[in-house]
């Protein structure tokens, strides 16, 4: 049975890679297309912005950032027409592969839960699978909301590496030590961790894209990446808060004290404080853009440390 399930997991990796390749081809193609269209487009924008006073139409909506022509949604007609020929069909493949990859992971997790009788929290294999699931889920939500396919070029490689790592650990099922047997709390704890870490991965992707933006020659505005980074962090932060609190609640029932400064607990707390720092740098110092992006990258690095922490930090969470 578990071997059958393993097939689902292997297939998920294949689909994640397929989605990645498709999106790569698609994005490099559309870059070429947009470069051709660029001349026409920029001429048009210049006209629109220059008039301003309202002779084109009686109503003028002046965007503070005129350049913020919404990336893919507001692509001007000429470019769209050219795109139709190839990349647009591929777009649905790129998205489709991603969804299938995620659905396969979902199926694997469900089958595995049915076999083991508990949520994906007993070893690193299960964590890794859940992490990939969270990353994919967060990416799909972000894609649905912001339509920025470019994010996948960072998100999907991270997901693929973790998926590969999960597969390399083997799918064996182990018995649970008593401390891990409180199913509901632990399942929720891990569930929130994965959603939160997934959102953190999306904000990381947005931050990377923000930093390398000058080299990308994207149609979308750079500010949009900043916004995606912030909004994903704003989703990740409360989820992370709930995750930590559920962990504390579980520690309270299992060990009698809700906080024991175990290294893995500390790692999660550092991550949490870094995201709090990110948000306060934004409201307090008006940090946006580059510095803000670096904070998000450090934040996700902390997520990875918290995640792999049990390999080198020791402590109560030191199961493998």
């Amino acid at each position: 049975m578990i071997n059958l399930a393993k097939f689902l997991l292997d297939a998920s990796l294949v689909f994640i890679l397929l989605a990645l390749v498709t999106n790569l081809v698609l994005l490099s193609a559309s870059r070429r297309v947009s470069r051709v269209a660029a001349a026409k487009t920029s001429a048009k924008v210049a006209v629109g912005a220059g008039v301003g006073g309202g002779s084109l139409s009686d109503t003028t909506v002046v965007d503070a950032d005129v350049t913020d022509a919404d990336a893919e949604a507001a692509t001007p007609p000429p470019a769209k027409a050219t795109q139709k020929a190839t990349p647009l069909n591929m777009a649905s493949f790129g998205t489709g592969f991603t969804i299938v990859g995620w659905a396969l992971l979902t199926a694997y997790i469900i089958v595995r839960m049915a076999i083991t009788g508990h949520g994906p929290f007993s070893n690193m294999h299960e964590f890794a699978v859940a992490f990939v699931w969270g990353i994919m889920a967060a990416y799909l939500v972000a894609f649905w909301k912001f339509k920025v396919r470019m994010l996948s070029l960072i998100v999907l490689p991270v997901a693929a590496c973790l998926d590969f790592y999960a597969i390399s650990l083997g799918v064996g099922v182990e018995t649970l030590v008593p401390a891990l047997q409180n199913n509901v709390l632990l399942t929720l704890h891990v569930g929130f961790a994965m959603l939160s870490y997934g959102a953190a991965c999306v904000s990381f992707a947005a931050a990377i894209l923000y930093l390398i933006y000058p080299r990308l020659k994207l149609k979308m505005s750079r500010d949009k990446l900043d916004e995606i980074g912030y909004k994903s962090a704003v989703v990740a932060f409360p989820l992370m808060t709930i995750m930590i609190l559920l962990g504390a609640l579980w520690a309270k029932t299992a060990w009698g004290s809700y906080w024991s400064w175990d290294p893995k607990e500390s790692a999660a707390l550092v991550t949490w404080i870094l995201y709090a720092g990110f948000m306060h740098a934004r409201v307090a110092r008006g940090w946006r853009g580059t510095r803000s992006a670096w904070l998000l990258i450090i934040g996700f690095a902390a997520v990875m440390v918290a995640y792999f922490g049990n390999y080198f930090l020791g402590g109560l969470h030191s199961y493998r």
Partner: protein
Amino acid sequence: MTSSDTDIRPDQTSAPEATPLPRQSSSTETEDLPVISMGQFFQRIYQVTYSKTIGLIIILLTAVFVFIGMMLQQAPSGTWADPAGRDQFMSMMHAKYGAWATLLGGVGFFHVFSSIPFFVVMAALAISITGCTSHRIPQLWQQWRNPRVLVSDRFFTAARYQASIPISQKDDQAIHVVQDKLKAAHYRVKRGNDTSLYADKYSWGGFGTAAAHLSFIIIMVAFVVSGLTGYQGTVNVFVGGDAIPVGDKTGLTLQATDFNAVYDDATGRPLDYVSHLVLKDGDSVVAEQDVRVNSPMSYQGFAFHQNNYGMAVDVTVADSAGNTLFSGAVPQPYTSQDNKFSIGQFTLPDLGLIVQVLSPVSGTTNADIGPGQLGFAIYRDGESDAMATSVVDQGTSATVRDLSLTFVREGQFTGIMVRQDPGAAWMWIGSILLVVGMTVTFTFRHRRLWVRAQDGKLLLASADKEDSGFREHFNQLVSQAQTWFSVRSK
């Protein structure tokens, strides 16, 4: 909410600017120092507490401390306070970090979470959060109850979001239409004058942030309360033995009538272990139940958790007057250097003594302690040579230096962690408030809109932070407004 009032500064007239503090002449002073009154002095201090930059620095400093505590091995709780334990721990750290250990230990990095610098940072964090929140609440109140309704002309051309729509109606009629439409769209509308209005949504959203900050203070207080007033200890209860006291002054006694452990056949790992515990307060039984890892027993704020189990010897110690000084199971987790004895120990704190109990390791024979016998070795606290020793058969006693030592039996013990945690309730209240507050903050952002009808045009503007969601909403609103006034292109 994240919007700050600085964005709508253009309207200087109606802005209740902070009046600059009166400057006092310093001519009468011999020293050329600016004179500040007591009030100003405290004002300055208050300003420091709500400084967002300082707040940010403190937040990042907290992260640094927790990071250190995560990276460096920390002394187990209590070890650092005990000089012998500290020395032992430090020698381990010297082996690990070499000469650096002295430095790291000196600055408190091996017990970060009970070190003074950490407490100072946490106190600073608490003060900063309190300052920020108390500074923010009046502003939030103002924005909720008494928002600025009128803005300057320039605002409509300088704001981040702005639009202008030609209208055919009279100015006041147009504003009336807008008012009705916005109300229908669940905006709160306040009229500035006949031709202008202010509208907003979720004006209370900012209180979520205040709640989140307040909740963090509650959590910190709960931590302190738990640390200072709680009780935590482990009692090793002999399975099938007598009831033993819980702590010194609780008046509670605990008895384990049964114990069971279930193992996984394949791996030998424990799957479940359960103690049947009976708790007495004085003479009456107040609680009795099976206690396993994730289902503790509670009574009056005390929680009894299954912690560990194993083999132990049951011993009692009494003084010459017959008062019991110690009674309970003593596990023997250590092995002597020659691998001949299993060793356990307990303390008699009132006498300043440490008692070691030694059993022969099964399968070995030796002349000192035979099978079924127990060796007692009594040490003065801090000394390494035993002041007295004695070997006792099971079920018998020996008298050593006025102490009567009894080896009751050998068998299984169950280790029960006892916690009394008066902070826990506050901890959970704070946690819920934290999550709710944050969710409110992020879900219900304060959205503001100023509208004015002027010279045949309807002007709309908002100074809220750049946000694609709000921009879309704003643009939608503008195109809707066009239909209200049905200005198709002339």
